């Protein structure tokens, strides 16, 4: 496949949920022509590898607001796009294994409530109602927000893909973005493995590969990809409604519409920094221990498969949304750190407005790519790196 034109209004690097949604917002505003290039196949990156959680419990106000808008968008998704992501608002349960962990949930709970969301404290008995079969003593309590939920990532990708093609957006796969051609401090063209594509605007929405692409463009960035693993069990009859998460070890799991238990765990520090998307015996052992310890009844349940994907992490846990301070026309929409699917509908709307030169309501000190240069303490952070 080859691009139909030699020049585009916007070229987006990465056809994951961030890139596709950005193109959707741009196309709706009549910006065109738009091209999306991707090095792999559709859904080959994190958009096809995540656990499908969508939560609104965050440590910063701006993220809670973005997440609320995203939940509203996913509620409408089936109507808007004709594809059913099976978005199920069956809640997120933050587990606390002891009193100290429970206390740490307090500030988030307060902040979430102050934003008008009905986060509830749950005691040990309440946890047992939400998670039937939990080992007594495994949790002293937690917080629960019933309007959080889970979805199937794939229909989101297909729905956006169909809508974009209908809107005349070009999407090309198997193309590697190699860098940008500059005209002074401005983007003039994207260089790809299939040649040069002229454009005044490049959006870096390459997820786990976005650092690599930024560096190829000569830009210093703070995000870094880390490999996370995940597994799925045999399908079981429904017994678990909410997504269950535990901050201490990053454990998260839910039961999908098909009945599988799907979940993961924060990775241990990997000195090699490998981002090969392979599976490890160590993860299978740690995850199985965590699940069986929490839900002993799962002991006899078989694991069907394990896989891995990349989190595009930033030092403060917040995404990078904004134009690069060193290169005009180069817009960052990355650093989502495993939360791209959760925040895509709303945050990409800001990306689209930035591309069109409009003002946005995200504070550059909180989301801008230049924020890491300043050593200012007291900047907000999101430490909850959870599914």
């Amino acid at each position: 496949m080859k691009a139909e034109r030699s020049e585009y209004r916007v070229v987006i690097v990465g056809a994951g949920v961030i890139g596709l949604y950005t193109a959707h917002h741009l196309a709706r505003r009549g910006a065109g022509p738009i091209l999306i290039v991707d090095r792999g196949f559709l859904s080959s990156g994190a958009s096809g590898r995540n656990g499908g959680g969508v939560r609104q419990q965050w440590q910063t106000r701006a993220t809670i607001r973005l997440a609320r808008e995203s939940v509203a968008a996913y509620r409408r998704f089936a109507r808007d796009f004709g594809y059913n992501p099976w978005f199920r608002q069956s809640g997120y349960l933050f587990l606390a294994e002891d009193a100290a962990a429970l206390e740490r949930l307090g500030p988030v709970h307060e902040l979430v409530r102050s934003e008008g969301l009905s986060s509830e404290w749950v005691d040990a008995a309440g946890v047992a109602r939400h998670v039937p079969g939990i080992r007594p003593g495994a949790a002293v309590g937690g917080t629960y927000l019933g309007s959080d939920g889970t979805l199937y990532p794939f229909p989101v990708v297909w729905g956006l893909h169909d809508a974009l093609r209908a809107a005349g957006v070009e999407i090309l796969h198997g193309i590697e973005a190699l860098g940008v051609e500059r005209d002074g401090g401005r983007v003039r063209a994207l260089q790809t493995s299939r040649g040069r594509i002229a454009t005044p605007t490049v959006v870096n929405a390459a997820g786990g590969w976005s650092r690599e692409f930024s560096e190829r463009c000569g830009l210093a960035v703070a995000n870094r990809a880390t490999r996370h693993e995940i597994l799925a069990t045999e399908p079981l009859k429904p017994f678990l409604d909410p997504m269950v998460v535990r901050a201490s070890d990053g454990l998260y799991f839910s039961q999908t519409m098909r009945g599988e238990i799907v979940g993961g765990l924060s990775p241990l520090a990997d000195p090699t920094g490998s981002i090969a998307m392979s599976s490890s015996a160590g993860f299978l052992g740690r995850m199985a221990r965590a699940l069986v310890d929490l839900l002993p009844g799962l002991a006899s349940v078989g694991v069907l498969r394990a896989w891995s994907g990349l989190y595009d992490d930033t030092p403060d846990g917040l995404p990078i949304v904004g134009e690069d301070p060193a290169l005009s026309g180069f817009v960052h929409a990355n650093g989502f750190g495993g939360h791209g699917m959760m925040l895509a509908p709303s945050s990409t709307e800001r990306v689209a407005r930035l591309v069109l030169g409009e003002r946005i309501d995200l504070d550059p000190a909180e989301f801008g790519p230049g924020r890491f240069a300043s050593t200012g303490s007291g900047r907000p952070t999101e430490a909850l790196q959870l599914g």
Partner: protein
Amino acid sequence: MNRTPADPRTSGDDARPPPRPPGLPIGQRSIRYHRPRAPFCGIGYCTNCLVRTDARLNVRACREGYPVDGVRPTSHAWPSPRWDLFAVFDGLFPHGIDTLRGFRRPAILVRAYQRVVRRLAGYATPRVATARAPAPPTQRRACEVLVIGQGTAGRAVADELRRRGVDPVMTVDRDRRRSEGAASPDLGRATAVFLPPPDPAQPHPLRCYVARDVGGLVEIASRRVVVATGGYDASLLFAGNDRPGVVTADGAVSLASAGFSPFSHAIVFGDGPRARDVLARFPREIAAIVAPNEIGPDLVAIAADRGIPLYPRSLLVRAEGRRGVRRVALRARGGGPLMTLEADGVVLAHRRIPHPQLFFQCGARMRWDPRPGAYRPVTDPTGATTVPGVYAVGFARESAVPSDAEGGARRTAEAIAAGAPPPGPEPLAPAEPLDPPHPLLGYYRELLAELGGREKWIACPCEDVLLSEIVEANERGYRGIEVVKRYTGLGTGLCQGRYCLPDALLILSILEGRPPSRVGYITQRPPVVPTRLADLAGIPGPEEGPS
């Protein structure tokens, strides 16, 4: 090659259970359309004979021994797998249920749809246990050479290694009979589920995780691993291909070994050595031989001797019958009228596929082998793969008659015993890609013209994915098996693509107009077979703590 799974209650061929009346043992309903299912593969991979015991969910009756007292079919049927009210979905949706675009209108009903669909999904509820069950710690063993699979080639390698003084040699096998006396010490029936890439920093760079049937995982560290996992009989696409009575050659032989007469007048589909095996095993029960191509002279002679009619160069279009196969519809290739044969079984003996999972897991370079239409590792003459220390022997390496498999296995053993350093990743010449068309490509091209009747063509039996859904994905512009898998759910069920993938690659090759080797492959993820969380929990690892 491993063909016949053992009945665990017997120790050898002579101690067969007494014969049972004809018929198939355990009723089962398919996951989405509640179609009646009966044992298909007979070797512990397909979804059709799931049962639960007191201790475990979703085990296969074909491996536990059919029918087991106190064992219930794992089923979401109501009131029973035999009489299942949910089977109305099959009739109500002759062209399938569209879960991608359906169930979203009116918006007020969406939550109700979700509740119903969720209720219908899944196989069984885990037993509620509130106490922490002691997880069996992973046993650790170390050896010089681990041989996985104890068929003809695996046994030949292990025997030759021991004869040459290589020590210790460990063997594992999914089929207990072949492990007896060979394993040191005997692990019983055990399946190699995960072979990660080697860690050259370790004295034993290879670490293979083996799940024992009795429970518990064994981590076997070794300097070499010889993979002799053989192959299995492939599925076939036609209308009603999931009817009870449609079995693989493996399944037919396995059922007969367990004392069943799965059919009284079946057709055999295939013209090769597997078809001869089936004829030898079922001297009176074969009513016809159907083959996609011409039938060879030796099979013609056997058929003439027994008065079995032959249908060479024929399309198997449809299997009919409400609960099980009653009739089979054929059409001569190149066009012609539809013929109907009376039959109560269809034995698929046309194609044998090697198990590629362990090779993919450890990162071996693979090549498309057009003869079975499957991926095999690239090897040098000693069977060494591109992964240092990992060897392939027997059918896992090449399609050959068993005597060649033994010879090849001996050459591998010689190379290992001689202490030949494991070749690195580079010295092997890339064997890419001789791509003569697979014989079934032309067959399926003709057969696709028959698609579109009221009977479902099941492309992925574990997940009830229809062939028409693959065609639809193609029409929407989705290319390559990885995307089609994510779009349709093909290959994501309990067999992890064993039975749908070989045919899906050929179908996509036709639809996309490029060779099967260009359609790609589904990443083979661990474990090779579903492995209990309790077993995996024993894998030693860094102690976890707050991160």
